[in-house]
């Protein structure tokens, strides 16, 4: 049993998927999140156990809508999709084959599916068949923090004339050729994970990873209809960020080294209080942005509030305050009740000035 397994306890490790890997880039400075993810800890359950359930969820309407849109795009042998690929990639695809790798002869075992994915992709890449080929649910593998993880596939790999494209189907709308920039960014980060994994697979097979395009085909509903439209999305920047994040995950060892001996986040044997104390031994880097993306965020916010940390005011505010960590320190320097350390002389002077003119103006 590795140290990470001990941390998690007997619970099954939570699988990574493209979303969780993409999320590594959302707050890469947070040791707490890095460690919990690396150990495969169920953050959702942990947060609930601690009494701080995640402040977000998914509406059943959104789930239904996503499913029905996905089905629509793939209906009739991906008829819609092929039409879109023809127009978006400007391809003359006469016909295309479609292989679903969501299970292999009734077997949905990861290893079996991954082997099958490799075999199919390799054959497509080496045969040099000019015809288009669609591979649905390709199960890819990726090394994250020294661990091999499978990627739950939510994409299609499309091969034409030896070039491969990731096709990502999303149910947010593209209205007048624009979509919510936050959602597009999230889709780009996830797609980059698949591009990266597919390139890794190619490299392992001795194929040219450059054959995987950095242009992802994003399929979304057009305007207010269910009708799909496709847009090419250049994910080179997301790929660069991802590759750097992955290369840095070795620092998990550094975090582990700093942990007290015998600590565990096991929800079965530990009381909420004990788990809370254990989690608190790993430093978090809370920012209000976490509230939109991390299951642990309310716990971390409560912790930051208890410490009266300037983090609760937001990243911009904290930088404006010269990086001072605590709110009482800010106010103490401002009203002269706390002597500044030599490093704080400048910010203290500014704060005193701000306090003076603020107090004047409010009076």
């Amino acid at each position, binding site marked *: 049993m590795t140290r990470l397994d001990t941390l998690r306890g007997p619970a099954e490790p939570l699988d990574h998927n493209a979303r969780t890997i993409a999320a590594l880039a959302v707050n890469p400075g947070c040791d707490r999140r890095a460690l919990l993810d690396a150990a495969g800890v169920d953050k959702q359950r942990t947060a609930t156990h601690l009494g701080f359930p995640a*402040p*977000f*969820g*998914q*509406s*059943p*309407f*959104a*789930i*239904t*809508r*996503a499913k029905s849109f996905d089905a629509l795009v793939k209906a009739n042998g991906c008829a819609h999709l092929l039409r879109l690929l023809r127009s978006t990639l400007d391809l003359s695809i006469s016909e295309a084959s479609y292989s679903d790798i969501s299970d292999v002869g009734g077997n949905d075992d990861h290893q079996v599916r991954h082997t099958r994915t490799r075999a199919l992709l390799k054959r497509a890449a080496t045969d040099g068949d000019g015809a288009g080929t669609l591979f649905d649910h390709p199960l890819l593998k990726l090394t994250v923090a020294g661990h091999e993880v499978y990627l739950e596939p939510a994409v299609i790999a499309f091969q034409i004339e030896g070039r491969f494209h990731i096709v990502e189907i999303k*149910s*947010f*709308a593209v*209205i*007048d050729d624009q979509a919510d920039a936050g959602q597009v960014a999230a889709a780009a980060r996830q797609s980059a994970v698949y591009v990266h994994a597919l390139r890794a697979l190619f490299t392992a097979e001795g194929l040219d990873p450059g054959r995987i395009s950095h242009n992802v085909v994003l399929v979304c*509903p057009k*305007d*207010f*209809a*269910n*009708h799909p439209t496709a847009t090419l999305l250049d994910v080179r920047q997301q790929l660069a960020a991802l590759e750097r994040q992955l290369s840095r995950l070795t620092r998990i060892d550094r975090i582990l080294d700093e942990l007290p001996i015998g600590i565990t986040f096991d929800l079965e044997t530990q009381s909420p209080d004990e788990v809370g104390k254990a989690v608190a031994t790993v430093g978090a880097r809370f920012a*209000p*942005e976490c*509230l939109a993306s991390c299951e642990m965020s309310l716990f971390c916010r409560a912790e930051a*509030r208890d410490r*009266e940390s*300037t983090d*609760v*005011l*937001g990243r*911009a*505010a*904290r930088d*404006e*305050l010269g990086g001072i960590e605590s*709110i*009482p320190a*800010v*106010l103490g320097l*401002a009203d002269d009740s706390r002597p500044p350390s030599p490093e704080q002389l400048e910010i203290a002077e*500014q*704060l005193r*000035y*701000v*306090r003076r*003119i*603020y107090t*004047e*103006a*409010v009076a």
Partner: protein
Amino acid sequence: MSIMSSYARALAVQNGRAQPVATVRHLHLSATPMVFIPLKLAGEAAAPLAALVGTDPANPRLLVVPQPRNRDLRFAFMAELAEVLLPYIEGLAGVTETVEAKTPYERCADAPQLLVPNRGGIAFTKLLGRSTRFRRTDGPYPVHPSVPVLGQWLTFLSERAEYAGSSALVSMTDALALHWATGQSSMEDANLATQLAWIAPPEGLDGPEAALVAEDPLTSPPAGPETHPDFDGQVLEYAIQAFETSGSAAQVREALRSQLEPTWTLMWQGVRLLRELPEAATVEARWARDRDQFTRETARLAEGGFPRGRVDGAVSAAIRLADLESALQAYEAQRAFDDPLVMIEHRVAGKAFSGEVVAVDATRRIVPAGKTRAAPRPLVTIRTSDPVRLSPGRRLVSSRNRKQRTEIVDITGDLVVIQVNDQMGRGATPAPGSVPEVGDVVCYAELDPSGGQRPRLPAGEDTPWTHGGPPEPYVPTDEDAQEAWS
């Protein structure tokens, strides 16, 4: 964000209550604002689900779409919304006043003001406008005649909301954040319930306590346009099923009412809080611009004006950008000159300073650059303790005369010397009162309330080759009118 607002946030944490960042109200508040709280169905682009709307706090009107996936029901909802909004808007268009100008013209005496809870409400209003303004009352998918008209007005209002200082369509959380700094982050201020909890916590609670309570979706449902996922799964889904089987919308209505009413109360609480602040000096002038635009749009629609196209052409985009920039520049400057607390932001940044006049050379005359005759150019020396970060030659405006042009001549230590360039009358010496006097406390800033000039741009039909040549003028098509809304 500045160190001033960050300091105010820190202070709010310590005091357990939001702190003021404005001393006056910087937006117009109509005597009868129309509060509009729209909800949409999760997962859909612009499927209206419900709205609570009205001008009377005691009498909101609840509109719902009992099956949000049904196109006909959506249009029925829009027609019903038009029943509320169009009489309000068109009623205000009827009363005009004559504006004294070089060429006197008629302007609406008042204009509509829509208040929505947050920026999401503005974005959704825009989408509702986008999805209805092209509709037709004849042809394959006819809609009620009021629907495309409402679409045009919603489009007009959401476009006005892009202009800094417009009060035509206002997000309540933005309006409140303009006047109070809470002890939470600006991101969390987008939650109307927690923001108001910090500003005006209920009896017996302090700001942070009240904000925690207000985060509970059971007591404070989201202010929209998205509903809470738990509500969707545990209540709404069943209510819609009930409608499907029974044909009665009662259950859907009650469910959505429960989600909307708490926000309705908060919206009017916000209105009351804002109303308690005295109106800033330039609010009236900015509201006059809203009224001008409203007057024009009324005339345009009366002449059968087309719905606005989906996107701007090259020339109209450039014109709009210039207008947006000008509006923002003027708004920032006016707000600072209207409010010493806002001016602090600029003083801290070194773009403005306040101090006492210690010397005046009122009789100074020089020959200005490019001129041949000497003219009065008095020098005023001001002592300030502000960290001035301006250099000689920079043009400044003062709060005592926003039209007078001045420039920095010298900064030495805490003494700033400025030269006054105009607005001194026609005499050989400055007219009395046109130049500050020793002992006056003055404030000068590198801010221009006039907003600058719009560049000369070609007409749309003369768009040059560099920008793609003349675009096809937008003419509504059948396709636009029949666009799917599913």
